[in-house]
């Protein structure tokens, strides 16, 4: 990940889109300083949250932010829940930890949270273990845990990729609805352009560890400017698309992050590549209407 900048407003839903290896998950983990060191390190930059630079906090201070003011929802609910603890204990833990609420009360609140994520029979669900839950129920438990301390920001990393489509729609609708009600901002990390179109207010497109384009959702889909964004949109078949049209793939392979070209990282796959693309990396430029793009064609 290389010099990534973006912002999220209060109560806003920001989608970070990219394919595997684009750096979207690493971006999310670095916000909460969850990058293991070594091998990873955050070398420069700042992460301002509510006016405070998260990179300057002590370990104890960042711990008091995690799960409290910023919560995270991961892709694999089975591996992010503790198999040996009941769901109630796990949902109640942030309340007990951050709010110093006694366990008895924290468990009552956990039960109410399970009801808020629309689980039936929450009183008995808090005594269940994760393995007794289906994939959809586990992800609901994760959302309940994330909401426990009424965070100002929820980061959801591919929260429904492991789920079936009908369950995916249930979970994302629920997440969006509850985030809106709590006035929490939501960062939704996904590779699915349909999910972005349905849920995001603003979109950041990442490629090979860099932001290549950022814009409000409607602006981005109406006027995609970066060749990668345009390529992505042309290569995905749509439910309402023309079936006789040949898909236009992006030729070539995603780059090796260990050996990135010196210029634009998309240059080797770009149809419009020029010499200057290969020479130096194009900066993110403002086009107005909150639309930014990193491409020499737009200079």
């Amino acid at each position, binding site marked *: 990940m290389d010099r990534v900048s973006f912002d999220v407003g209060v109560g806003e839903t920001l989608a970070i889109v990219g394919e595997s290896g684009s750096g979207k998950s690493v971006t999310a983990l670095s916000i909460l300083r969850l990058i293991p060191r070594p091998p990873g390190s955050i070398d420069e930059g700042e992460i301002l949250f509510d006016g405070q630079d998260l990179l300057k906090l002590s370990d104890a201070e960042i711990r008091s932010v995690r799960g409290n003011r910023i919560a995270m929802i991961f892709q694999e609910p089975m591996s992010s829940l503790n198999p040996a603890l009941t769901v109630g204990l796990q949902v109640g833990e942030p309340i007990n930890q951050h709010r110093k609420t006694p366990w008895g009360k924290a468990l009552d609140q956990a039960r109410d949270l399970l009801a808020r994520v629309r689980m039936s029979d929450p009183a008995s669900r808090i005594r269940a273990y994760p393995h007794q839950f289906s994939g959809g129920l586990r992800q609901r438990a994760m959302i309940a845990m994330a909401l426990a301390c009424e965070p100002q920001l929820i980061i959801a990393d591919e929260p429904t990729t492991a789920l079936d*489509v009908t369950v995916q*729609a*249930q979970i994302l609708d629920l997440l969006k609805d509850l985030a809106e009600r709590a006035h929490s901002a939501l960062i939704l990390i996904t590779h699915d*352009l349909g999910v972005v179109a*349905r849920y995001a207010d603003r979109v950041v497109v990442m490629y090979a560890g860099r932001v290549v384009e950022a814009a409000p959702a409607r602006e981005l889909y109406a006027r995609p400017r970066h060749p990668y964004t345009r390529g992505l949109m042309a290569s995905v078949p749509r*439910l309402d698309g023309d079936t006789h049209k040949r898909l236009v793939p992006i030729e070539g392979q995603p780059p090796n992050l260990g050996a990135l070209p010196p210029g634009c990282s998309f240059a080797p796959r770009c149809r419009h590549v020029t010499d200057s693309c290969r020479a130096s990396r194009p900066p993110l430029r403002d086009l107005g209407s909150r639309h930014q793009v990193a491409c020499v064609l737009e200079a």
Partner: protein
Amino acid sequence: MSELLLRVDELKVHFPVRSAGLFGRQPIVVHAVDGVSLTLARGETLGLVGESGCGKSTTGLAIMRMLTPTAGRIEFEGQDITGYDRAQMQPLRRRMQMVYQDPYGSLNPRMKVSDIIGEPLMVHGLASDRRAYRDKIAALMRTVGLLPNMADRYPHEFSGGQRQRIGIARALALEPSLIVCDEPVSALDVSIQAQVVNVFVELQQRLGLSYLFIAHDLAVVRHVSDRIAVMYLGRIVEIASREALYKSPQHPYTQALLAAVPVADPVVESTRRRAIVSGEVPSATNPPPGCRFHTRCPHAFARCRTEVPELRDLGGGQAVACHLPEAATPPRAQ
């Protein structure tokens, strides 16, 4: 209608998980596929869609006769292959091939690409002339968009999309008439999916192949299929031409499935009618009686809970398994 290649009648595949115990415990049986009927014509693509556990992959494996069906009948190129043993299947394997989901797990990492693609030719004794064999492999690699000079490399030297091309080249080696594709692009990144989808479409146009295209991505299935069958808990709930299925889906589950898939356009999305079903797919070990979708169906009534709906022909190649009266009316004229 062109010539029929494959006909499946009332196919059932049940897996016993636990046999009846000493103390009279009930045996547990997974009803993975429970009465599936479908046909496939030469040169046609039938999409088979459904959520995980609906039995779509098991149906594919049973058609390939990599599984023994519990009941039903499978007819391929006019022969009833339901009861065929290994030896009887051997000559037919040339005519039916499979492409798998995982391009990492389905290629032997210790074999060179040329050996992976050529293995079917060896097995079927078609590799006697060394030179013709090399030429054939080079031609197969070019067919799927790989460079023949990569023939001596190993799978790990290739990307996911290229590996999937290797899998397709191997499937093509014996010039089959049917390829069963089980989630062939779902493990690939979106920008690479389109490359592989285009390979499938072009090969069909050139070689007249038939595909049984098994996938959960409704947009990809719509793009490649002539007809589509929707499965839910081991049964087909609706089968129709691509146009009819997406324009006027009749089964409440088909409608829910289509409504759940977001369209990559914020303007369209903000005006779409959304009928999101609640709950999740029940277990196939103990499927609900009657219509299997009734536990999640917003329109279910008494009859749905007791009586299994059979596929009813609505005309125009569309059939639906639903008791609802509105599902009985023929689809709206387009």
